[in-house]
């Protein structure tokens, strides 16, 4: 049996496979289909300081090998998460990492501070890369000073593992990664969705109510892979790779490019059992190649 565990900062993951924020609910949504405890971790739906209704319908457009979404961080706020959702998920025997977003630095800090005391929330993922909100979100993640500022502020109130989720909608993602590393990020998730657009030619109208939205799915995998490779060479903290991962081979490619762990996103919509298939597939790959420890694959790309 190959060793599948990996370390993301202080978090010992039983395997490198986690669910991506916004594609897995909070976990219970998938209980009928898989044993959620088998995952390396769950990244929850984004959590903000106050209730957010999100954007108007339509919020989704299917595109070649992927989809656009403009959900807009719909959630009931951090207090609802703590009082109502957390009690339903704290039994999971896996890392619960809450995706944190807001429209102000103070909002990010409020959410992070409140989550700090939850025993089973072992880390947060700062979402400075959501392309679907007017204020905050991606605005924080597309400039080095802004990304550094929000990272520094949240670091000052949060003790546990803090991952920063980066936006691909930038000229040089490695610079942003270095900026958040310098301000205390323990890890970076690479990448969030790419800003895109879909048009209904018959109606001459945009498909999404917000006109633009975030592109995800296999269509973005080559871009994500390239960015993981660039970022992992630029920083010393662990990189979590995501973007279009749909099977174990995709996951292995991200590890080879330099990711310590990976997240599975849009593929959960197509196959609610895909995370388990990826875990089993990584193990089979290791066995087939005589790899005793999956960590041997991290950054093992031979150029």
């Amino acid at each position, binding site marked *: 049996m190959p060793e599948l565990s990996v370390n993301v900062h202080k978090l010992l993951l039983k395997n490198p496979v986690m669910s991506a924020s*916004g*594609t*897995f*609910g909070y976990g219970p*949504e*998938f209980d*009928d*289909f898989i044993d959620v405890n088998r995952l390396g971790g769950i990244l929850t*739906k984004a959590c903000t300081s106050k209730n957010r*209704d*999100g954007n*108007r*319908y*339509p*919020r*989704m*457009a*299917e*595109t*070649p*090998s*992927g*989809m656009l*979404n403009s*959900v807009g961080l*719909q959630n009931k706020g951090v207090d609802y998460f703590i009082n109502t959702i957390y009690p339903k998920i704290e039994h999971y025997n896996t890392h619960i990492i809450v995706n944190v977003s807001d429209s102000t630095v103070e909002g990010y800090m409020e959410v992070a501070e409140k989550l700090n005391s939850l025993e089973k929330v072992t880390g947060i993922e700062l979402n400075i890369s959501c392309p679907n909100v007017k204020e905050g979100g991606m605005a924080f993640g597309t400039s080095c000073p802004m990304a550094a500022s929000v990272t520094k502020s949240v670091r000052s109130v949060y003790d546990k593992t803090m991952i920063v989720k980066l936006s691909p909608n930038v000229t040089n993602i490695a610079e942003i990664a270095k900026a958040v590393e310098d301000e205390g990020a323990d890890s970076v998730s690479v990448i969030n969705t790419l800003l895109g657009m879909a048009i209904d030619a018959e109606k001459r109208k945009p498909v999404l109510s917000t006109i633009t939205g975030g592109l995800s*799915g*296999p269509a973005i995998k080559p871009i994500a892979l390239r960015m993981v490779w660039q970022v992992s060479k630029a920083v010393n903290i662990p990189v979590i790779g995501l973007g279009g991962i749909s099977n174990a081979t995709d996951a292995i490619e991200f590890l080879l490019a330099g990711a310590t762990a990976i997240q599975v996103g*849009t593929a*959960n*919509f*197509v*196959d*609610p*059992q895909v995370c388990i298939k990826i875990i089993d597939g990584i193990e089979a790959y290791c066995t087939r190649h005589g790899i005793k420890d999956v960590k041997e694959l991290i950054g093992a790309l031979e150029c």
Partner: protein
Amino acid sequence: MKKFIHDFVVTRNHHITDDYFAIYLKCPVSLPGILPGQFAEVLVSNSTTTYLRRPFSIYDADYEKNELSLLIKKVGDGTAALSKLIEGDVLNLVYPLGNSFSMPSGKKALLVGGGVGIAPMLMLAKLLHSKGYKPDVLIGGRTADDIIEPEKYEPYGKVFITTDDGSAGEKGMVTQHSLFAEDIKTYSAIYACGPDPMMKAVGRIAATHDIPCEISLENTMACGIGACLCCVVETIEGNKTTCMEGPVFDTRMLK
């Protein structure tokens, strides 16, 4: 209700007209209970341009044959690919998803289906009939070709038809049918599924007469299990997911 993911085997792909077909699918295990209005998310693996699953109302469930069926209209690449499935092909379903209709307070109920929107009304008509209610089924379409298998409803209630061009039944839209004149007050519930403007029109008339009205929405969705929040509908209680809190909604709840 517990949800499942299963590989079904196609036992028959019945091409009803050029545009409509019904796929009959055998369940690999004992078919779980399915309520009227519930739907399945179907993996369309034989279309390279169809990435996400497609949601379809469950048309019928046959527990003796261990089969369920889906009534589908050819619209795009995904439905065209599904129309090509033949006996023995495998189709992966995530099901049964969503809620169901509530029972009427009195005996008489009116079921309204527009085009392929008639799909959830068959199981509803059966259930109402089995519980001693008297369902009337009103089927509307653009032309006679859009009136799909009206004979299926006859064992469970009276069937009425409208077409926009008058090629079958009364001419006009469903809401112009004579049932919506004087008789409408005799119904204690109205159920509708079809194009949005049709459902809105039915809902308005129901509201005028203070008759409870439930409609089944067809919002586009990705996951079908409440994870992505793409399929939301605005209600007086805030956004609700069509896939989990719907697809059936009381029209008085909708904005």
